[in-house]
């Protein structure tokens, strides 16, 4: 198992070129943030404030206009095999079975067949998809596909797990099941995790710390440690006094922006 490393974001300001003109849109404004190794960080904020962009920077897919992004001690200038990325849509390869999808990362690393199969079997078991290993994505439900994506995410024993609204396409019940499942797997591995979400409850119930962004250009508005004890029972925690306090505070932060908009 890789020793976990943290994430450090130093004074990141970012511009995107407006399509078809010489002008630039500021997307992120002087964002600095440090996540400890093994911390579960959630990013919330209004649509278009640059959350996905920031995640892409950590993944090494986008270079900030100003400032620096580090994964551990290393500058995040390009994608790295220690990083796993989970998207809102499962993004499975439709011509690969569930098992082959989970094996993809290992295959790219040239891992031997047996090791790939063992890892995939273990993770499909863990995500409750053992019986569907040989199914193609078109024969799986939305929720099952997302669980395959989850298995794929953890198959590489990543040091960093980045998630962009991974549960947003699921219905309420499936969502809760997936959130719990994710937390359960994460608690076993304790990788550094960054979760982008629109769902305040999700952020508070799952993460160690929630960072709230302002509308575009995104600035950090609030940064809260969530001291709810682990392991957490997401279903009952909703009715916990402390959860309600935090939720209230964050809601006020976000609400101000909505009122001003």
């Amino acid at each position, binding site marked *: 198992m890789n020793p976990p490393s943290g994430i450090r974001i130093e004074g990141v300001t970012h511009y995107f070129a407006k399509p078809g003109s010489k002008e630039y849109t500021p997307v992120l404004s002087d964002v600095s943030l440090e996540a400890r190794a093994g911390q579960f960080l959630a990013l919330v904020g209004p649509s278009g404030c640059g959350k996905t962009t920031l995640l892409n920077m950590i993944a090494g897919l986008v270079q900030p206009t100003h400032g620096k992004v580090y994964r551990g001690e290393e500058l995040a200038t390009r*994608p790295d095999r220690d990083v796993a990325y989970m998207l809102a849509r499962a993004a499975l*390869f439709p*011509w*690969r079975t569930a098992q082959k999808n989970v094996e993809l990362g290992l*295959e*790219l*690393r040239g891992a031997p067949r047996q090791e790939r199969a063992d890892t995939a079997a273990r993770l499909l078991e863990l995500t409750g998809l053992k019986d569907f290993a040989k199914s*193609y994505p078109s024969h799986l439900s939305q929720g099952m596909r997302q669980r395959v994506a989850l298995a794929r995410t953890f198959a590489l024993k990543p040091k960093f797990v980045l998630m962009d609204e991974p549960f947003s396409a699921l219905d309420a019940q499936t969502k809760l099941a997936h959130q719990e499942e994710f937390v359960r797997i994460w608690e076993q591995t304790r990788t550094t995790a960054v979760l982008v979400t629109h769902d305040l409850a999700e952020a508070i119930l799952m993460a160690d710390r929630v960072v709230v962004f302002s509308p575009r250009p995104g600035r950090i508005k609030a940064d809260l440690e969530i001291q709810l004890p682990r392991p957490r029972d997401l279903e009952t925690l909703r009715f916990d006094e402390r959860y309600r306090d935090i939720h209230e505070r964050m809601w006020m932060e976000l609400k101000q922006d909505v009122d001003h908009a």
Partner: protein
Amino acid sequence: MSTVPKTYSETKGNEESATASGGDAALPPPPAPSRNWRLYGNLTTQALRIGVLVLVCGLWQLSTSLGWVDPFLVSTPWDVARFLVSSLSSGDIWPHVQATVTATLIAFVVGSLAGIVTGLVLSVSPRLNAVLDPYLTIANAMPRVALAPLFLLWFGLGQTSKVMMGISTGYFILVLNTHAGVKAIDPDLKTICHVMGANRLQMFTKLILPAAVPAIFAGLRLSVVYSLLGVVLAEMLASQAGMGQLLQYYAGLFQVQGVFGVLICLSLLAVAGTAVVGAVENRILRWQ
């Protein structure tokens, strides 16, 4: 509401019997495995199809025997059938079928492969694509059948001319389809590949190539037909053998039944070619 069990003991009994035999005992059986013949339509559809054929042939026969149209110009179904039987049984038509089929196969294989390779190269090299794009557009927009006289001049009356003609009609379909297939790749899949650390070669073999396969097959189904078209066209202009030449020959002799007979054979060949590609496609694209 009617499914609510009446008594507690009844539910309990059901549960026990269910778990005892693997959990499925309480369920009615699953449907019988479905068979493929449904694909070709049910009996009524089949009957109606044959009905249409009979109707068309009947009208055709009737209108000639009643003198509405001149059988010299349109022949009759009966004459066409007689022509087909006699030329197939005497074997006169076979060398021509062989010439056309061989040329079409060569043109299809070479043209499609070249088209796929070109399409893939253009897809992985945006620069090359940007440079060549206008020329490809022009070459594709040009009515390429008009190249036939030139090919005859360059390659003579033999097989090469018609193969080249068949290649030129099939090639661009594959270039464009392959390219379109790659362009349509889900950007999320690219992101996932990137993040997982795929190198350029892996990006190609694990993502681009398999993702383009459906579009490539759609192109292949078309290019079978278009290769045949190119070949037949070249044969019609000038050649030593082939079904296109045969068409010209019968038309020149005012043997309309011969023209129709050859046309029917050509259509059957085209349908057979498409069916073969379709069958291969169904095997390869089982994941769809």
